[in-house]
């Protein structure tokens, strides 16, 4: 698309308007909380002027992007899909948002999420970039922890949150990562090593590559379709000369529990700031400060959020702190060590499923409570967050139901480039039928007129 813009085949304004039109047509999906139409069109106009003068800012100039609604955007409502932040308009941009805007990207709007990113589908903290990517047939990248600034990302779990990147192909993910990565003085958890934008080489020879298959990830809950694709992928690498070996991550079965304790504990702390005084929702009660806080938080948070806060507070009680919170921190080290040991044994990249199966229908999804769902759905993705490693989900094939299935690659810390290089090689070999924008635009009129699609709310 960038090339098309540069060659003048399409103008930023045309592109912007096509996207806005598509957003309107798919409104029933409730994917956007806020559509920043005026802002986007104005940005498109400015981008167009730059192209006319031959002064484009780079590959992202004029490209429409959407940002999940837990990233602060100056002057544009940022809610985290929660009542607690309804009407909250941040006075600043998150660093990653600013970087995209500085490159001339067009901000189409703020996308929906589970309240405060606490669903199985909702958190870049346990897999929520990779999970939806796998279900939707797109590339989902979680960079190494410390590579991309979290300033302006409303925090869930400070020690695990990472801004995630969703794109249609691996090359695009690499481009965006190149722009977003780097030290940010406003986020002291970003590393200081210099980072440059990079282009991914087109790997042809994988004979020096060692792919690890963690045996503990072969669980009984894994659908036979995903299992067979995983096998197929391993065979693909082997047939092309790569070394493919079985490895062990012995503490895998404890990672969900560990995550549960650490996540709820950090959440309990991070949600404490929402008291209705400085920003966000405030209830009408004026009896006492305590009553005001309590009512504000009851009105502002949904059940899932409140439960996590309560669980977290339990684990942080003086009598529980050692046995739960500190214990979980120790188990976290063991999990991180498992990965280090595997990578030290000569493995370059791990290959695992991203999800247990293709996307499950909403009616089935809501049968289990949130904790059970997260425990099931995050199983392959969240150990990576605990270890801070980079991981990417790449779409591989459609299921027998026609739904996308993706596989996950996990790399060494700060070897995001190498990880993406392998992912790109794989993407090229499997030739997943990516939806092209043009065909979607052409087809969507008939699709949406003829079929009655149930309205799915992600809130």
């Amino acid at each position: 698309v960038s090339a098309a813009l540069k060659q003048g085949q399409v103008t930023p304004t045309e592109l912007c308007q096509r996207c806005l039109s598509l957003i309107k047509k798919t409104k029933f999906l409730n994917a956007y909380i806020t559509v920043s139409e005026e802002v986007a069109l104005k940005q498109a106009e400015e981008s167009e002027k730059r192209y006319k003068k031959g002064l484009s800012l780079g590959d992202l100039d004029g490209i429409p992007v959407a940002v999940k609604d837990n990233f602060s955007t100056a002057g544009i409502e940022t809610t985290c899909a929660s009542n607690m932040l309804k009407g909250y308009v941040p006075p600043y941009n998150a660093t990653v948002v600013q970087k995209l805007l500085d490159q001339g990207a067009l901000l189409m709007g703020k996308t929906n999420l589970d309240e405060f990113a606490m669903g199985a589908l909702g958190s870049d903290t346990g897999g929520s970039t990779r999970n939806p990517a796998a279900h939707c047939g797109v590339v989902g990248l979680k960079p190494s922890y410390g590579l991309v600034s979290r300033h302006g990302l409303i925090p869930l779990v400070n020690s695990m949150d990472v801004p995630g990147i969703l794109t249609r192909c691996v090359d695009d993910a690499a481009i965006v990562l190149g722009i977003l990565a780097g030290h940010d003085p406003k986020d002291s958890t970003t590393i200081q090593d210099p980072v440059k934008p990079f282009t991914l080489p087109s790997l042809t020879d994988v004979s020096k590559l060692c792919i690890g298959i963690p045996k503990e990830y072969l669980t009984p809950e894994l659908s036979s379709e995903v299992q067979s694709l995983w096998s197929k992928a391993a065979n693909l690498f082997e047939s092309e000369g790569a070394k493919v070996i079985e490895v062990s991550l012995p503490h895998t079965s404890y990672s969900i529990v560990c995550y549960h304790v650490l996540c709820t504990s950090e959440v309990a702390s991070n949600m404490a700031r929402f008291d209705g005084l400085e920003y966000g929702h405030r209830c009408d009660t004026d009896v006492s400060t305590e009553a005001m806080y309590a009512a504000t938080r009851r009105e502002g948070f949904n059940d899932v959020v409140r439960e996590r806060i309560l669980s977290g507070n339990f684990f942080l009680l003086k009598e529980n702190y050692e046995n739960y919170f500190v214990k979980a921190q120790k188990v976290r080290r063991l999990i991180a060590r498992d990965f280090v040991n595997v990578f030290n044994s000569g493995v370059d990249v791990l290959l695992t499923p991203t999800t247990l199966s293709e996307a499950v229908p909403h009616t089935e999804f809501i049968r289990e409570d949130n904790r059970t769902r997260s425990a099931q759905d995050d199983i392959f993705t969240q150990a990576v967050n605990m270890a801070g490693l980079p991981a990417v989900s790449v779409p591989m094939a459609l299921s027998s139901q026609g739904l996308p299935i993706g596989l996950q690659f996990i790399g060494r810390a700060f070897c995001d480039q190498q990880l993406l290089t392998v992912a790109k090689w794989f993407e090229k070999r499997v030739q997943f039928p990516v939806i092209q924008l043009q065909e979607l635009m052409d087809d969507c009129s008939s699709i949406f007129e003829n079929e009655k699609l149930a309205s799915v709310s992600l809130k």
Partner: protein
Amino acid sequence: ALREDALRKPRRREMWARAVWLGLRASAGGRRGFPSKAAPQGSRRVTAELIEHLERLALVDFGSQEAVARLEKAIAFADRLRAVDTDGVEPMESVLEDRCLYLRSDNVVEGNCAEELLQNSHRVVEEYFVAPP
């Protein structure tokens, strides 16, 4: 203290839930613990005392008996960590523990944005955020 939210108009469904909830607590005799039917063998009972304590600390309420049951399940789930041998293992606070934390120099480079910040609050008097008494 927290239960005195009589001034807030509860929605009908919440009122029903609240009535059931209070009724359950009353029948359990106040401070006695009441085990949830679903609690597995040997799991921690969440006593009424603990509930009050957590609600006080968290400033959110459970809202229903189901929520308490879910906490019990969450605790039982977390108890699985006991099976892991962590002798001699240090807790891990950050994956970046081997690196020096970046500290910028102690110079004022931004600020003077009181007006912007005050704009987001519902109740402001001059440059103060206003809380109830």
